[in-house]
């Protein structure tokens, strides 16, 4: 059961799902994802306790994120990172579930000549600025983003400095 945490708060004022992973284990998340997206989810794996990884096809990303938030309770997107490889871009979403304390590493990839994915900022508001940052530094285009502009660099800057072909 939930123990009383915090000081000076009335009992029962803070509700929170008991932070035991038993509620929704790594295997159950993977099974739910596979049931919903049988062909799009590949390469799933449990990395360590509470952390799992899956790959998703680019065209299903938005629906998958909606599914994760509404059905599986992943309320918080921790980090969105874009990585450039020789033949592709990978966009890595680290998504947290506050209830069961799971961390899901969701990877999607785009070809070099078309670095664009659907924006998930309408699913998680916290993704908004992180997507803008990936656009700014890596040049990934997020479709349907409410305001896809540079955020860290000046708006008249021409390059995407985190790309490997950028020479300072």
């Amino acid at each position, binding site marked *: 059961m939930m123990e009383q945490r915090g000081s000076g708060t009335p009992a029962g004022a803070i509700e929170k799902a008991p932070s035991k992973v038993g509620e929704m284990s790594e295997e159950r998340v993977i099974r739910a994802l596979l049931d919903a997206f049988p062909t799009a989810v590949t390469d799933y794996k449990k990395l360590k306790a*509470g952390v799992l990884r899956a790959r998703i096809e680019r065209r299903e990303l938005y629906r998958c994120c909606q599914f994760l938030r509404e059905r599986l309770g992943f309320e918080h997107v921790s980090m969105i990172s874009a990585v450039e490889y020789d033949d592709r871009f990978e966009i890595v979403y680290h998504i947290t579930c506050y209830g069961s304390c799971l961390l899901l590493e969701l990877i999607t990839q785009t070809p070099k000549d078309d670095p664009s994915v659907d924006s998930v900022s309408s699913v998680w508001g916290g993704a908004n600025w992180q997507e803008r940052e990936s656009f700014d530094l890596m040049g990934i285009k997020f479709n349907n983003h409410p305001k896809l502009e540079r955020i*860290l660099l000046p708006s008249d800057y021409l390059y995407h400095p985190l790309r490997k072909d950028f020479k300072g």
Partner: protein
Amino acid sequence: MGPQHPMTHGLWNLRIKVDGETIVDAEPEMGYLHRGIEKLCENRTYTQIIPLADRLCYGSSLTWSHLYCLTVEDLMGLEVPERAEYIRVAAIEMQRIASHLMWLAAYAADLGTLAGFIYTMRDREVFIDLLQALSGSRLTYNFPRIGGVAHDVPPNFERDSLRACTYMEKKLDEYDQLFEGSKVFMMRNEGVGILKKELAMNLGVTGPPLRASGVNYDLRKDQPYSVYPELDFQAISMPDADCYARYKVRMDEMRESCKIIRQAVQKMPKGKWRIVAPRNGPVGTGIGRVEDPRGEGMMYVVGNGTPKPYRLKIRSPIFVTVSAAKQMLVGYKVADVVAIMGGLDMCIGEADR
């Protein structure tokens, strides 16, 4: 407001649209301190990045170099000696207190309690001195190493730490009287900047502002790293979701940090404090997550078998938290901006990277 406005505590700009005195729209502007640290890391070896990670945040540099070492250890699959873990935990909790005290100093000065600024800065020195005895420097420590810490604790460290904790706990009660007895401070805090629980979760707010919105999520408890599972402490949260709740959460966290330091220095086992780490990182990825004083700090590293990381992504808690500024500010008066934005504990070094 900004980038030169005294309430910003760093270089950032806040554009607000007002209707009379009421805020109708707000947008923060970042990027004044962008140094391209993620790009710099790609041209440094794994060990050379530790001092660079310190420079991410001037307020709590130790948590960032600790997070970096944690991430690279995850990539390399290293087991850190237990003594090193206890030294790290004691050090990062001291850093948490020092960071919260620096926030409190700035916040108190913003809200017109200038005595609070002097008191908290004075007491922060106690912990800065302890960290100086431990690592040799006052602000950017370069103390954690991949596979342990740089050196063992200095003589009498346990005695001094216990003394500092007792001193701090006494002072915290004094602060409570000072701030909660101040009518001005309470009037500018209570019921200001309310951020509802669902909104806070959706907007990616983490750390004390999230816990002040009634979500009891602390990575030290809920996804424990290091030796936190063996220590007895509480995760603090408050249901009120206003500026006063954020203040209260941080004050109680400092009390919990004192408890953690006390246990960590007493439980510290004998043994090695560092193992040798390989020079080259393997091909693969590693992640690290810690509860920074400002929220959820996270790093993602991609290794390609060379001595340099292929890609290092840094997740800054404040960068995401400040994107929720609009939802916190709209509907309040211009004079409340200082309390609301000050209550987030802005650190531009890590937000702009």
